[in-house]
């Protein structure tokens, strides 16, 4: 049996930085991806396939999750197939980065020192990170160049230090509504922050620049402009001849002997046959929930509670992104219909002035707000119109409402991002009673959240609402919720110096298993108040350098 230098489980943002660095560094790398290999030419703007059916995620008949939620002070369990609420995200080569919108924010220095900056919060397991911002900064910069980040630096009070002056790619073309946002923010004395995007505004190597399709988030990119792990890192890594990607490979277990991983057992989901991969070193990056599931299901004599889990920390302190969403309606009363209805151009504005909040003389960690238009998915857009005041509409009344919605209005959304505090009630476990069609226990996710998250989210939503009001938006609605967004996962295998209360060391190497690294968002002990992708990419490059250094020595 062929033995590889490195076996990587997963192929998304956390996996690809390692694959790219090691393949270019001359190592023989094998990557196991659960789904298929879609390339630029395979993607289309097909709302049915990409948004309405389980095509790029496992069918919920094949695999699912159980969710524990609080109901009348009791934890109640449901399966995700019972209400069609999948927690899988983009299971194809490149992972969910294929389908991201690419709103890219770095963590700020305070995110690495949450406990020492703001102190403990009762009921939350807040700790400082074991690295600081300066250690990750060179890798954030590397992501800007290799994955491709476009934008223009907007100075504001909490802006993180940068080693380069500007982004390597200029800003994407902007929708006329950004002028209204800028004007309204200026009047309110708020900084309208120009949102960096992981989308190329100029071509790079074999990737073409953005063609403003108006169908970005939730869709694969047909030009390669979006900085997916596949387009930006895996395709160049494949060219070295050192990277092999096996698709339709669901890894069910990692074998262990003498505290070292000896093999990855996977099922080919098309033939249903089992295979085993041998390597010197194993890297797991299957997105937080599925990574924890794999470790918890990899039980052995040395690790009866799951691989690298004699500390009972695997799965603990799972993170999502707290906050919520808001909407406002715009029509010809705020700007000309011709300008409002311009298609394809980006909003690219955020509010970051409240990354720290001073409330009643108490300083606390805040967050950010991104603006974006309602996605141009006509089925979803139309479907939301069918209820009014709890009554189902149809016939002429419904048709009139649809026509008005599509031809005279545009909905601007805002999304609030603040820390999802780590607690004892947000974790991944496995329950032997619930198994997928391969007989493997599925992940159980308890989705408890800390009340502080809602408090911060509401403060931020109020600020966003004030901008919407100033802009002249109608029917402004906000929804700050403790229900997690399924695509923004982190934590569960936090890194730290003490093996008793962390799974990984500073370099994301398992404390208890010498040749095991974890490089998706699982390592994060606290999540910060931005989407995770940029940090996951950066950390993946950082860990890859540590692996190379270790191999050399």
């Amino acid at each position, binding site marked *: 049996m062929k033995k590889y230098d490195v076996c990587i489980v997963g192929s998304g943002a956390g996996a690809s930085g390692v694959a790219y660095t090691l393949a270019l560094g001359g190592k023989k790398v094998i990557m196991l991806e659960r789904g298929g290999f879609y390339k630029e030419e395979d993607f289309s703007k097909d709302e049915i396939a990409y948004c309405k059916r389980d095509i790029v995620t496992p069918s919920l008949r094949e695999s699912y999750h159980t969710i524990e939620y609080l109901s009348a002070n009791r934890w109640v369990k449901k399966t995700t197939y019972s209400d069609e609420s*999948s927690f899988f995200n983009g299971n194809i080569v490149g992972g969910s980065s294929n389908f991201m919108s690419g709103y890219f924010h770095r963590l700020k220095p305070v995110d690495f020192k949450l406990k020492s900056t703001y102190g403990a919060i009762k009921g939350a397991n807040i700790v400082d990170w074991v690295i600081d911002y300066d250690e990750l900064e060179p890798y954030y910069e590397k992501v800007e160049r290799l994955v491709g980040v476009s934008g223009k630096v907007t100075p504001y009070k909490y802006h993180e230090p940068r080693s380069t002056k500007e982004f390597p790619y200029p800003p994407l073309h902007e929708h006329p509504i950004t002028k209204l946002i800028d004007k309204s923010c200026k009047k309110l004395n708020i900084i309208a922050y120009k949102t960096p995007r992981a989308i190329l505004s100029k071509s790079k190597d074999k990737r073409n620049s953005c063609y403003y*399709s108006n169908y970005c988030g939730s869709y694969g990119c047909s030009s390669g402009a979006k900085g997916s792990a596949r387009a930006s890192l895996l395709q160049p890594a494949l060219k070295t001849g050192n990277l092999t990607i096996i698709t339709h490979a669901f890894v069910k277990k990692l074998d262990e002997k003498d505290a070292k991983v000896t093999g990855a057992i996977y099922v080919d989901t098309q033939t249903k046959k089992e295979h085993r991969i041998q390597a010197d070193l194993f890297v797991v990056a299957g997105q937080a929930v599925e990574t924890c599931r794999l470790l918890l299901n990899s039980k052995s004599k040395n690790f009866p509670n799951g691989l690298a889990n004699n500390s009972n920390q695997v799965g603990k302190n799972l993170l999502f992104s707290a906050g919520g969403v808001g909407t406002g309606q715009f029509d010809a009363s705020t700007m000309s219909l011709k300008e409002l209805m311009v298609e394809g151009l980006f909003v690219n504005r955020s509010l970051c002035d409240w990354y720290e909040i001073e409330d009643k003389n108490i300083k606390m960690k805040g967050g950010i707000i991104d603006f974006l238009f309602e996605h141009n998915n006509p089925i979803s857009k139309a479907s939301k119109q*069918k209820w009014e005041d709890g009554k189902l509409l149809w016939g002429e009344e419904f048709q009139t409402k649809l*026509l008005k919605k599509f031809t005279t209005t545009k909905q601007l959304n805002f999304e609030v991002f603040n820390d999802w505090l780590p607690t004892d009630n947000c974790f991944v476990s496995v329950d032997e009673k619930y198994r997928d069609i391969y007989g493997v226990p599925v992940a159980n996710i308890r989705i408890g959240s800390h009340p502080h998250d809602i408090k911060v989210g509401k403060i931020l939503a109020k600020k966003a609402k004030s901008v919407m009001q100033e802009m002249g938006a109608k029917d402004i609605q906000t929804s700050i919720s403790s*229900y997690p967004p399924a695509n923004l996962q982190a934590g569960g295998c936090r890194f730290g110096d003490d093996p008793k209360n962390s799974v990984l060391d500073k370099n994301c190497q398992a404390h208890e298993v010498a040749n095991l690294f974890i490089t998706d968002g699982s390592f994060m002990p606290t999540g910060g108040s931005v989407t995770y992708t940029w940090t996951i990419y950066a950390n993946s490059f950082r860990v890859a350098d540590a692996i190379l250094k270790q191999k050399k020595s």
Partner: protein
Amino acid sequence: MKKIITRRIFIGSTVLAGTALALLPQGAKTSIRVEPFKVIEVVQKVLFPKGLKAPSASEFGATSYLATVSTHSSFWRDDLKFLSHGATLLIKKERDFLTMTPNSKDKALRNFVSNNSKGENWVALILFYTLEALLSDPIYGGNKNELGWKWLNHHTGQPQPKVKFAQL
């Protein structure tokens, strides 16, 4: 973008497991098996009639769309059961529904959903699939001649799909 989990319609316990009725395209041999589909076709005509500018459910191919997509493995099986079950419930309550005048059908349907959340969910589910038919890519059999997109002045993204369900 935050992926907010929202089931498009609450069905939950309203689905009767193991209902004997299957949803099959028209032309199937046993009459009782054809009935749910016929009922749904008539309901779609009530939900989406020919308007001043709006295309009708028949014009944009609402029923043939449903016939196509409901045979694919990705179609939600609980929806199949519920679509059949609801059709039976409607005919039980409104026996002459299929032969009524358009106005009477609309009235009967409104009567059916009144104080009946299960009935209302069933109609909402049919409306949901009618909207899929109106605005999905014509490759799936609905949105004939792009009537839905043209009516709402919607410009689809490029490239359009060359295969159904993004099959490799």
